[in-house]
C-alpha cells in the first residue's frame, strides 16, 4: 500500500513555505499532489539559496527540494483562458485544493471557492494567507518577521534589554502549513461523510497567536504581561540555554524532586544548598545558581552533559547544529533520514517522517524527489485527453 492517503487527489496552487509544507505532508503521505507552477520560473522558492547546481539553480534550491518531495509539477498560466479551463478540469477530479495566494488573487483568476465548488461541490479548498480572507488587515503585506511580530511571538522572544527577536527558521509559515494539513484532513472527513465540501481560511498570524502558549492567557488572568526573558524559562531558574566547552546545552532543573541530582552530576555540594531546593528558591537565587553551574559546564562537552542529565532522569538537552543532527546517534539508529537522488541536485539525506505510523504491512510515507519544473505536464495533461501534439500546442501558446 503506497502511503496512508493513497487515492486522495490534491491540486496545489501554493508557493514559498506555508502552503507547500501543507501539501508536502499530503503528498508524502501518499496523496497525488499536482503542483501548479508559473511557466518559466515556477514557485518563487526555487530562487532561494543555497543551490546544489549553479547552472540550474531553479531545480536545486535546498528549501524547494525539501518542501516539494513526492509532488508532481505542472506549469499553467492561470491568467490565460485555456490555463484557467485546464485548472478547472483538474479541480473537477480532485478532492482537495490548497492555495496560499494573497486573498483575492484566486478570485481575480476566476478560481475562488465559488468557481471551484461549482465544478466540484465536494471539494475541500484550503486557503492559507497572512491575515486571513476577512478583516481589516486582509490585504496587508507580510513576510515571516511581520507575522511573528503581529502574532505576538516576537515580543516574548529575546533578551529583555535587547530588541524583540524572531526565530531563525520561518516557523510561523511552516507551522501554519502544518495546521492547514490538519484542517484539510478534518474537512476531508466531512466531505467524505456528506459530499459537502467547504472553504478553509487559515491565517498565518493567527497560527502565531494559537501557539502563544500562556502569554495571552496570563494577561487575561492576572493582567501581568509576559515579557522577554532571554534564555531563562519564564518564571524559572537553572532552566534554559547555557554555554559549555564545545557549544551550548539546555539545563532543565526540574521537577523539584530531581534537582538534587544536579549537584551530583556537577559534583558541587553547594548546589545542594536547601535554598535552591524549590523552583521558587532557585528563582530567587538564580544568579548564584548559574555561577555555581557554569565552571562545570564550561569544562564539559555538550553531548556528555546532555547524557549525564538524562542518565540522572533530568531532561537536559543540547543545541544541535545541522552536522550534529545528521550524525545524531538516535536519528541514525531509527533510520530517520531518507536518501533521495535528484538528477540535477544530486544525492542528499532528507529528514524523514515527522511521525511514524506503522501498520507493519506498508509504507505510510512515500518519499520521491521534488519534481523538475513542468516535469509532469505530459502525464497530467495526457490524463485530461491531450496527446503530445496538443501539449506542444499549449506550450507554443504559452499556456504551459
Amino acid at each position, binding site marked *: 500500500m503506497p502511503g496512508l492517503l493513497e487515492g486522495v487527489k490534491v491540486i496545489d496552487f501554493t508557493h514559498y513555505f506555508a502552503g507547500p509544507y501543507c501539501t508536502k505532508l499530503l503528498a508524502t503521505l501518499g496523496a497525488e499532489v499536482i503542483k501548479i507552477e508559473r511557466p518559466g520560473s515556477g514557485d518563487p522558492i526555487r530562487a532561494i539559496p543555497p543551490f546544489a547546481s549553479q547552472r540550474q539553480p531553479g531545480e536545486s534550491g535546498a528549501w524547494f527540494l525539501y518542501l516539494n518531495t513526492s509532488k508532481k509539477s505542472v506549469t499553467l498560466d492561470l491568467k490565460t483562458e485555456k490555463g484557467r479551463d485546464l485548472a478547472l478540469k483538474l479541480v473537477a477530479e480532485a478532492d482537495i485544493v490548497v492555495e496560499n495566494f494573497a486573498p483575492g488573487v484566486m478570485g481575480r483568476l476566476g478560481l475562488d471557492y465559488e468557481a471551484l465548488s461549482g465544478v466540484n461541490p465536494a471539494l475541500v479548498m484550503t486557503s492559507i494567507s497572512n491575515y486571513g480572507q476577512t478583516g481589516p488587515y486582509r490585504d496587508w503585506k507580510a513576510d515571516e518577521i511581520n507575522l511573528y511580530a503581529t502574532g505576538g511571538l516576537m*515580543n516574548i522572544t529575546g533578551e529583555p534589554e535587547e530588541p524583540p527577536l524572531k526565530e531563525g527558521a520561518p516557523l510561523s509559515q511552516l507551522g501554519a502549513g502544518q495546521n492547514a494539513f490538519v484542517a484539510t484532513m478534518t474537512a476531508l472527513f466531512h466531505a467524505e461523510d456528506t459530499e459537502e465540501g467547504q472553504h*478553509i481560511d487559515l491565517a498565518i498570524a493567527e497560527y502565531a497567536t494559537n501557539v502563544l502558549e500562556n502569554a495571552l492567557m496570563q494577561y487575561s488572568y492576572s493582567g501581568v504581561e509576559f515579557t522577554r526573558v532571554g534564555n531563562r524559562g519564564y518564571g524559572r531558574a537553572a532552566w534554559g540555554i547555557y554555554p559549555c566547552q564545545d557549544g551550548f546545552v539546555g539545563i532543565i532543573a526540574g521537577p523539584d524532586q530531581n534537582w538534587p541530582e544536579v549537584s551530583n552530576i556537577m559534583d558541587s555540594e553547594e548546589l545542594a544548598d536547601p535554598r535552591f531546593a524549590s523552583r521558587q528558591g532557585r528563582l530567587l537565587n538564580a544568579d548564584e545558581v548559574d555561577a555555581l553551574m557554569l565552571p562545570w559546564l564550561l569544562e564539559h562537552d555538550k553531548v556528555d552533559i546532555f547524557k549525564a542529565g538524562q542518565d540522572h532522569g533530568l531532561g537536559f538537552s543540547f543545541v544541535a547544529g545541522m552536522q550534529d543532527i545528521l550524525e545524531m546517534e538516535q536519528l541514525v539508529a531509527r533510520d530517520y533520514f531518507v536518501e533521495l537522488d535528484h538528477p540535477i541536485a544530486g544525492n542528499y539525506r532528507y529528514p524523514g517522517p515527522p511521525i511514524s505510523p506503522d501498520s507493519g504491512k506498508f509504507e505510510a510515507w512515500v518519499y520521491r524527489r521534488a519534481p523538475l519544473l513542468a516535469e509532469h505536464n505530459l502525464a497530467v495533461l495526457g490524463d485530461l485527453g491531450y496527446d503530445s501534439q496538443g501539449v506542444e500546442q499549449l506550450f507554443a501558446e504559452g499556456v504551459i
Partner: protein
Amino acid sequence: MSAAQPLKNFRILDLSRIWAGPYCTKLLADMGAEVIKMESLRVYDSHRGPITPAPGIAAYPDSDPGEEAWNRNGWFNCLHMSKYGITLELTEEKGRRVFEELVSISDVVVENFRQGSLSRLGYDYETLRQIRPDLIYASMPAFGNSGPWQNYVAYGIGQEQLSGMAHMTGYANDGPMKSGINHGDPITGSHAAGVLLAALRYRRRTGKGMFVDVSQQESAVALIGGEVVAYQISGEEPERMGNHSPWFAPQNAYPCAGEDRWVTIGVTNDTQWRSLAEAIGQPELADDPRFATNQDRLQHRRELDQILGAWAADKDMWDATHQLQEKNVPAGPVLRGPDLLDNPHYTDRGTFNYVDHPRTGPKWYQGFAWRMSKTPGQVHWPSPTLGQHNRQIYRELLGIRDESIDDLESGGVIGTKPTGSRII
C-alpha cells in the same frame, strides 16, 4: 450543538499531559472529536500547577491560586476546552478494569509519558489491541519508541535545541536563543493530529488500526528540514542573524516612539523596496545603486538599517505600519498581550475565545486555529476541573451503576481531589 462537527464520530482517550499531546487533542476537540482527558489523582497534568502553589503566580486569576488551585491554572485551562475530564488510577485493579472498558470503546489512545511507562503498567500496543483490535495508539515520547535515547525525556524547550531551531535563532554574533514559547510542543501536536486523522481515514477504508510512533524530536527536525538539506549543499551551518533574513533585505525590527515599541519591516522584492523608498519620503533611495537589487540590499543591510531606524525612531509604531502598508510594503508592529486583545483585526475575525470557567470567571484564550465555512469550531464547555466528568463518563458511557462509582470513589480509584503532584 448547532453546526455539524466533522470529527464527531471519533472518540479519543487522551492520557497526554503538558502541551504537545494536549495541543494535538485540542485541535481535534475543537473540530468535534470526543476527547476524554484522563488524569491520575497522584500525578495529574502538571499544567494544573502544584496542589498548594506559592502566592503571586500570574497564571492564576489575579495572581491568586485560591481554593482548588489545580482547577484555576490558566496554563491548563487554555488547552482543554470541550474535552471531558476524568480521573482513574491504573495502579488499582478496579481502575484497570475501567480503563480496559474505556479502551474498548475508543478509536484512538494518545499518551506522551516517558517511553515505556504505559508498557510497565501492562498496557503496550499489543495488549491494547487485544481489547480493541482496530485501535489507533499514538505514543509520543521525546525521542520515539526505539533507539538508544528512547528512555530519555525532553520538553518543548529541549526540542527547540535538539532540532536545530535554537541553533539558528539569536542575535548576530551571540549565542543561540530559545523562543518565548516551547515551540517543539505545538509542532509535534499538530503533526500528530494530522497523521492521526490520516490513520483514522486509512482505518475507515481497511478496518485496520495501527501503532503511531511519535518522536517529538523527529517531528521538530522535519519542520525545518530545508536547513538540513541546505547544510549538505553549502557545508555551512545556518548563521544567527537576529532579525535579518538570510534571503531578503531590508528586514528588521526598528524601535519606535514609546517604551519597547517596535515596527517590523519585511521587504522581499524590488517592487516593495521602491515602494518603501517612496513611503518613507526618500524616493531617491530607489535609484541608489547600493540598494538596486536584493543582492545589493543584502550586502548593504547595515546602511539600510540606519536609514530605516532613523525614519522609525520618532514615529508611533501604528503610524509607521500604516504609512508602509498604504504603499504595500510588508510591515507590522510588535504586539504585546494587551495589543492582541484590543486589536481591530483579531476582534473582527473573532480570533480569541472568551470562555467562562466556573473557577476562574470569564477569560480570554487562544481561539480556533482556522475557520471552516460549513463546520466552524465551537467551544462546548470550558476546560474541565479535575475529575469533573467522572460520573457522566462512567455512568453514561460505560454504564457503571452509581453504587459502583461510589465504590471507585471511596477506594481512591477515581476522585476530584488530588493526592499528589509532580510539577516540572
